[in-house]
């Protein structure tokens, strides 16, 4: 190929191939490389030995990548990069040397060793969670007796944040759920003339199941996620280490006040939820079934006994503790940055709800048996 011919071709296009020689022209930069790569696909390159870079005006890492791709396509045959301009030569020198091999992908075949490792890992998690739970219980009880381990007023603040501030949302949602539940039940019961039994059903449903469950789910979303992200962030920003360095136990100073607040707040919120849910039942009963409010309340309370009230509070309490332990553990596991804090928060919510449902199954079996 003569220079004249080269010149004419280059004037029209960036790629010109002739036998074992390829002439590239213009800019080999990230904006031009996609188009040039498309052109190169139409050119036979099997016998390529020389790439003429004398007309390349600019080269960046995308261009270097493209040239490396050309060389890799020759399966080990030598490729000469000829006559680069000073700028191109400088860029080639910058990226000189053997190209870095991509890191091998992680093997996907599962071996017995992997399974044993996983079992050991899960056992480690459970052990860590167990130890942390023990520490939280110990320091919370100790803080009740000797309240000097945390800031003055911290428990009250946590009661307000976790409990008092949650009252509107717990009450609203419980009322709505109570109305929905009562409406669905009323329609079915009316078909068999069982309208008056709506009070029995609502009493049992709200006190035994819906009250504590609804409260636990709301607390998980409001406080569990907040605790996990707070502890996770404190890990990332060295705040927990700073407390330790000051001779202050983070579990005692940060977590124990929250645990004490949870212990007080969750049974009370569960009672509130059950009570407001029943009010929803009263509304449906008086408007759709025609049963007077007093009669509904008398009947609902009549079917419930002291054990039900105790279960309601115990359930609320255990659900609260489960949320607390899970959220703290997830927060404590954060080691990286903001992404891990987000992941820990999600993990705390999902694991807490899982733990709550699991506990609920145990409670239901307890009732039945």
């Amino acid at each position: 190929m003569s220079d004249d011919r080269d010149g004419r071709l280059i004037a029209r296009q960036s790629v010109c191939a002739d036998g074992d020689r390829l002439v590239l022209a213009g800019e080999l930069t990230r904006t031009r490389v996609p188009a040039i790569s498309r052109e190169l696909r139409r050119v036979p390159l099997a016998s390529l030995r020389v790439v003429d870079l004398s007309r390349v005006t600019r080269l960046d890492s995308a261009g270097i990548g493209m040239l490396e791709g050309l060389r890799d396509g020759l399966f080990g045959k030598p490729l000469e990069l000829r006559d680069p301009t000073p700028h191109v030569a400088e860029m080639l020198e910058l990226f000189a040397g053997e190209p870095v091999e991509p890191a091998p992908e992680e093997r996907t075949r599962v071996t017995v060793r992997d399974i044993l490792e996983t079992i050991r890992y899960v056992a480690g998690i459970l052990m860590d969670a167990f130890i942390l739970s023990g520490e939280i219980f110990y320091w919370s009880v100790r803080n009740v007796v000797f309240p000097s381990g945390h800031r003055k007023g911290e428990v009250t603040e946590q009661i307000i944040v976790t409990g008092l501030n949650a009252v509107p949302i717990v009450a609203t949602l419980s009322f709505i759920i109570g109305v929905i539940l009562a409406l669905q039940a009323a329609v079915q019961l009316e078909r068999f003339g069982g309208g008056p039994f709506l009070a029995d059903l609502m009493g049992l449903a709200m006190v035994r199941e819906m009250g504590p469950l609804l409260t636990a789910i709301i607390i998980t979303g409001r406080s569990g996620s907040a605790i996990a992200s707070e502890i996770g962030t404190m890990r990332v920003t060295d705040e927990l280490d700073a407390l330790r360095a000051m001779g202050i136990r983070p579990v005692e100073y940060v977590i124990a006040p929250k645990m004490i607040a949870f212990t007080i707040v969750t049974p009370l919120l569960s009672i509130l939820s059950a009570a407001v849910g029943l009010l929803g039942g009263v509304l449906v009963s008086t408007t759709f079934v025609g049963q007077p409010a007093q009669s509904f309340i008398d009947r609902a309370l009549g079917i419930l006994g002291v054990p039900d009230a105790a279960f309601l509070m115990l359930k609320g309490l255990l659900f609260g503790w489960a949320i607390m332990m899970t959220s703290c553990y997830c927060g404590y596991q954060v080691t990286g940055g903001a992404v891990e804090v987000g992941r820990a928060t999600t993990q705390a919510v999902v694991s807490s709800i899982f733990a709550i449902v699991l506990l609920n199954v145990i409670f239901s079996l307890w009732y039945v048996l």
Partner: protein
Amino acid sequence: MREHSEVALRVRGLRSHYGDVEVLHEVDATFARGKITVVAGRSGCGKTTLLRNILRLIDPTSGTIELFGRDISELEEDELVNLRPRIGVLFQNGALLQSLTVGANISVPLEQHTRLPADVIERIVLRKLQLVELNGVEHFMPSELSGGMRKRAALARTLALDPEIVFFDEPSAGLDPVTAASLDRLIVELSRKLGITVIVVTHELTSIRHIADRMLFLDAGRAVFEGTVEEAEVCPVDSVRQFFRQGSSEPLGRRSPGGQPM
């Protein structure tokens, strides 16, 4: 006997691992009482790991850490809790509790380790803020302060209990040269006026030259030099020589018209 009283902290044969990776290899070092010792070295050489081991925020694999005349390398957490009020630590980013005001942050160690009345604690807080030249910020939240102010506020908290030994982890990291220099000046003043033993982890050559009485140099987890900065400048150890030479070199790319370095 005299040597013992002159030494505030002594580390012997300290080894530390992250998982299977050995980060510190048999580190031996002494830190003089009332002096500023800089722990220097390139990034990733184990400076912060050494600091965290000494503070027992990480448990060492083996070796001894003699602090206040006793080996603390195997103390239980309960014993450490009693020991730590005598130590101050300024973390790299300050590590102020974000949920508390600056004043509340400084009062945390005072409330936890003393039975002082609230008004005395308040006065101490104001004095400590004055000491670090940060008046009038006690009601600010940490997020409302600049990076340099946050570090000063954290330093005020570090000094709240009048510690005998203070550790600084990269104090000038992320600060502009002027703020970094003023923090260096503060460290020197505190050490001289209060007689505090200061241990500073840094790789900032300017800071090292300004503040260091003595220097410990780490290279790939090994202590390769211990002495004064003047001795370090003429130290024949490759990594130390390279550290000082690189820090003193001309800006890259400044060349004479003939292509030779100016």
